């Protein structure tokens, strides 16, 4: 029966607060804990981001300057700017760029405007607040893959519901139905419809949250001018939520220009990745996928990714600037 030397009894006694002088052997340990533990806590994020986020982006720049084919690993070496030069003269790229912008405008403008209206409706004293708010998120939680397949059926030429609805209002003849996939304009509308459907509710909640943080006395002050609900919305609410407007415009620019899922699955045979028989709705993201994994030319796909990145930067920047100005330049 010897005294247990291993268990320091100090540990069991609650220390007085503040500790006069912590025991020597614990002191360095606490110092180490205060100084180093924060870095240990944040390191998993930075390590994982460095490996799977930052490195691919930098390495992508290297790949873009090289010959890199999946079907011909021996073809190697620096290509210089050959991939980028090819890009400038590539009709497919310019076609995809046009499609991306067309769909982007058709989907972003109505999306944000309708979201504003819906937010304005939700920004009332309502019965069942939670019900409405959760309800508008139905499209948000629905997988894009699933909803796009529904819309693909909805916009089908024969027996499609879209054509049937149009025929009801006299815009379409069921004996000579509209082939939504055949033309640029109709396929763009179909795809933009899917994007709008998915994101209106989400953006409405973003707007609603900003609307509810507007001080109430702003509205009282406006009562002197006799502003009705409609003027109230455009004269007070919209300028007051401008930061969130800028945020959503930038967000939809980044997302909209990378559009991939909807154009992919709108195809009658998604594996083809051509974006229609004549690439009438092929987006850049889709073209990158096709070039990289159907034509197996990773070097060229990487160059295209850079081009897309630049375009996103410019468009997001311009849009942020414009939205800022529109609201009266309230910086």
């Amino acid at each position, binding site marked *: 029966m010897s005294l247990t030397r291993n268990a320091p009894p100090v540990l069991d006694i609650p220390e007085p607060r503040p500790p006069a002088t912590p025991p020597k052997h614990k002191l360095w340990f606490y110092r180490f804990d205060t100084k180093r533990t*924060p870095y240990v806590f944040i390191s998993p994020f930075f390590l*994982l981001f460095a490996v799977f986020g930052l490195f691919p982006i930098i390495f992508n720049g290297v790949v873009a300057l090289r010959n890199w084919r999946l079907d011909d690993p021996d073809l190697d070496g620096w290509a210089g700017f050959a991939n980028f030069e090819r890009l400038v003269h590539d009709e497919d790229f310019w076609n995809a760029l046009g499609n991306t912008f067309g769909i982007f405008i058709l989907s972003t403008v109505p999306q944000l405007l309708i979201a504003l209206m819906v937010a304005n409706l939700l920004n009332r004293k309502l019965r069942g607040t939670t019900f409405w708010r959760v309800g508008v998120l139905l499209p948000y939680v629905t997988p894009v893959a699933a909803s796009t397949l529904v819309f693909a059926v909805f916009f089908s030429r024969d027996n499609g519901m879209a054509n049937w609805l149009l025929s009801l209002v006299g815009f379409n003849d069921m004996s000579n139905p509209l082939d939504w996939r055949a033309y640029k304009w109709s396929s763009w509308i179909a795809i933009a419809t899917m994007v709008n459907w998915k994101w209106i509710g989400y953006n409405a909640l973003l707007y609603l949250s900003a609307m509810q943080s507007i001080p*109430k006395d702003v509205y009282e002050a406006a009562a002197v001018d006799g502003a009705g609900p409609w003027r109230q919305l455009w004269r007070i609410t919209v300028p007051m939520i401008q930061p969130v407007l800028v*945020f959503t415009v930038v967000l939809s620019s980044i997302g909209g220009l990378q559009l991939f899922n909807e154009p992919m699955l709108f195809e009658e045979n998604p594996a083809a990745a051509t974006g229609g028989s004549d690439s009438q709705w092929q987006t850049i993201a889709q073209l990158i996928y096709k070039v990289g994994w159907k034509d197996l030319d990773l070097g060229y796909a990487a160059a295209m990714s850079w081009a897309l990145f630049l375009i996103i930067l410019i468009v997001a920047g311009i849009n942020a600037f414009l939205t800022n100005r529109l609201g009266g330049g309230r910086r």
Partner: protein
Amino acid sequence: MTTVSAPAPGKRRPREIGRAPQDTRGNWRTYLALTAFLLLSAFPLYWMFVIATSTDEAVSQTPPSVVPGNQLMTNLREVFTMQDVYFTASLINSFIVAAVVTVSTLFFCSLAGFAFAKLRFKGRDPLMIVVILTLTVPNQLGVVALYILMGKLGWNGTLLAVIAPFLVSAFGVFYMRQFILHAVPDELVESARMDGALTLRVYWSIIVPAIRPALAVLGLLTFVATWNEFQWPLITLNGTEFPTSMVALSDLASGNYVIYRRVLAGAFMATLPLLVLLVMGGRQIVRGIMEGAVKS
């Protein structure tokens, strides 16, 4: 929304003017418009169910059928037994991927969020700015190089390839930091440290209990986003025996002759788990989206 009917003079209540919208009671037009919007939002889901339960004849009739049929089980059996689609496995895979990513995101992001919100260390603020900047990087930029990287690691075509890149998220760190900043008083952390608690101990016994609501919110958002991920899984998992449910869906819809009722029965199965989540945790998802907006 565009009705310009002038209000009847007798019904006009002047005191409504000048009142903040959120104090104004919604009238019947508000409810009518919201109901219409909700129906439009729900309709594609409802119609997906209708086709998933129908026969081929019902799908191709004009006008289209809008009443569910009784063929759900037949259609689902076809989906689950279809060659080279691996639908059963894909649902399990999606669950594994989404669960692992969610747990990891919650753990690592709350750890980092705690450090950024409550601990003092050199370089804290610049590093936080780095985190925020990474939020704006379009993820598609690195897809080609990520594929090459996964090839070198030998992970392409395995679930590791779709788990590893999503183990942490900048949004998660940011969200956790904001929440911890406001939800946990500094004194609580200080006094625990005075009592001799190690930082990890403070995290586990003080931070984690205090941030449970935020963990629920971030967990739900992460699960939904991971489950719905399509492009990257398609690139790395397509053609293997380990698809996620989104990749399996695209296989189901590929081919020269597509059977709609079968495709949408699959789509219905892949959507169902998320609808259950929305019903159970809708309040939290709404909260997460709305809080994220205010703070960014």
